[in-house]
């Protein structure tokens, strides 16, 4: 049975077209996926991402444990700051990618993917020492407000509902909380913005307040074209258990600076961090008409060298873009097999739309 978020009725009122995703009925768009994409790049859009999983970690051993569990090093965070990291298997394969916030040395918050919820929770429970508690946050909604005007409009909406959190002075990748509200200046679109966690009971009223400030609802379709333009990975497509972060374009999530930090997967990941794995991630821009899509074969001079992991049409650049994983020996231009036609593509810099602006 698919679940609904606390904002379901708001989505219906805005004429959402629903799709089933990670066990939830969520809006894919509210009328125009491309229109919603442009709205996020030009002003502000909001996404209901309440299906994602929030887990609070607390106890005196919390920091040491997370330094062991995660590929990036939470010791370099100060209170109220977040970082992007992977959680890997012993062989370096990625179990999930996630954002971890440090609130104090003994209290952390993890936001993990909806689709990997059961797997992640089981893994964490299985690797947790005594003295560290895991609490999944329930009855909580998560709204992402993204775009050049997002922070300004979200701040006004917060005032309207009586929340006095000073988000305009929040640094990127920093968070603050007040009672049951938690706000991070993070996002998945390449734009400035905030991700706001709040009790389900207050979600509809806050969504309404955001609407009144001019923020437009945006669905999962726009979320995907935005994140791909920004070069951000999607677990299950660009990331999976069979490849390391270094083979997926996110070697930056592997921190080997502290030689004494023994984290799960360190042996393989240290090697991959320094020398790369067998595969690497590349960005592709299609030279001809068509749309690059997950699973298409990437060829070089007739040889199969890899696969498109995520592809789409970029509304901002008006051409097709993709992330692909290819055998590292490859360099230069290539062809992609699109419905049995070979179309030329060239490697492009990722992100395709850096800081929300189209490349010249």
């Amino acid at each position, binding site marked *: 049975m698919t679940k609904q978020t606390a904002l379901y009725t708001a989505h219906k009122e805005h004429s959402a*077209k629903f799709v089933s995703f990670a066990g939830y009925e969520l809006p*894919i*768009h509210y009328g*125009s*996926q*491309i*229109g919603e994409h442009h709205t996020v790049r030009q002003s502000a859009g909001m996404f209901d991402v309440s299906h994602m999983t929030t887990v609070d970690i607390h106890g005196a051993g919390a920091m040491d444990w997370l330094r062991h569990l995660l590929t990036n090093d939470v010791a370099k965070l100060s209170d109220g700051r977040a970082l992007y990291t992977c959680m890997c298997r012993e062989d370096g394969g990625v179990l999930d990618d996630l954002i971890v916030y440090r609130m104090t040395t003994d209290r952390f918050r993890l936001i993990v993917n909806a689709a990997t919820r059961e797997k992640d929770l089981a893994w964490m429970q299985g690797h947790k020492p005594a003295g560290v508690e895991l609490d999944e946050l329930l009855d909580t909604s998560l709204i992402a407000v993204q775009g050049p005007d997002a922070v300004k409009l979200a701040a006004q909406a917060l005032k309207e509902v009586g929340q006095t959190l000073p988000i305009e002075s929040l640094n990127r990748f920093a968070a603050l909380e007040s009672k049951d509200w938690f706000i991070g200046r993070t996002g998945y679109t390449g734009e400035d913005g905030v991700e706001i966690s709040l009790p389900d009971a207050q979600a509809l009223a806050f969504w309404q307040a955001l609407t009144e400030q001019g923020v437009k609802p945006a669905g999962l*379709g726009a979320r995907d*074209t935005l994140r791909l333009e920004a070069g951000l990975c999607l677990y299950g497509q660009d990331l999976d258990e069979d490849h390391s972060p270094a083979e997926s374009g996110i070697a930056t999530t592997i921190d080997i600076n502290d030689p004494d930090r023994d984290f799960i997967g360190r042996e393989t990941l240290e090697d991959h961090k320094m020398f790369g794995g067998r595969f690497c991630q590349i960005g592709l821009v299609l030279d001809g*008409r*068509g*749309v690059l899509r997950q699973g298409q074969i990437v060829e070089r001079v007739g040889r199969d060298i890899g696969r498109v992991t995520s592809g*789409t*049409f970029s509304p901002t650049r008006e051409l097709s873009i993709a992330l692909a994983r290819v055998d590292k020996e490859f360099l230069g231009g290539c062809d992609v097999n699109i*419905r049995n036609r070979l179309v030329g593509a060239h490697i492009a810099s990722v992100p395709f739309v850096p800081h929300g602006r189209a490349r010249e």
Partner: protein
Amino acid sequence: MEIPGDLKFAPSHEWVRIEEDGSVTVGISGHAQEQLGDLVFVETPEVDHVCEAEEGIAVVESVKAASDIYAPVAGKILDTNGNLAENPELVNSEPYEGGWIFKLLPDELADVENLMDPDDYQAYCEAEE
């Protein structure tokens, strides 16, 4: 979206309008464009191409997926909508007007008469849900 009364429909969601000169104009229905989402490319057929009924002769591509458009009846392609190269979104905003895809000369006009009326098509779509 209201369906214009003078149209006929194929089960694969193409609409057909009989023109005064005996040719027919073809596009995809409001229901179809809504299912597809925002279109980014339309591949129109070649003029003078001779097609069978139900032959895949055009392609519409949205961000989500590519979909084939089928000839509603057998005939010869007379013309294609040149505006769709620059503005594929016309198929979404005006599926029955500016978003027409091609014109063809049917082998038998009777084949067009045998297609669904707007009411039958409406019922057909509801049954498909």
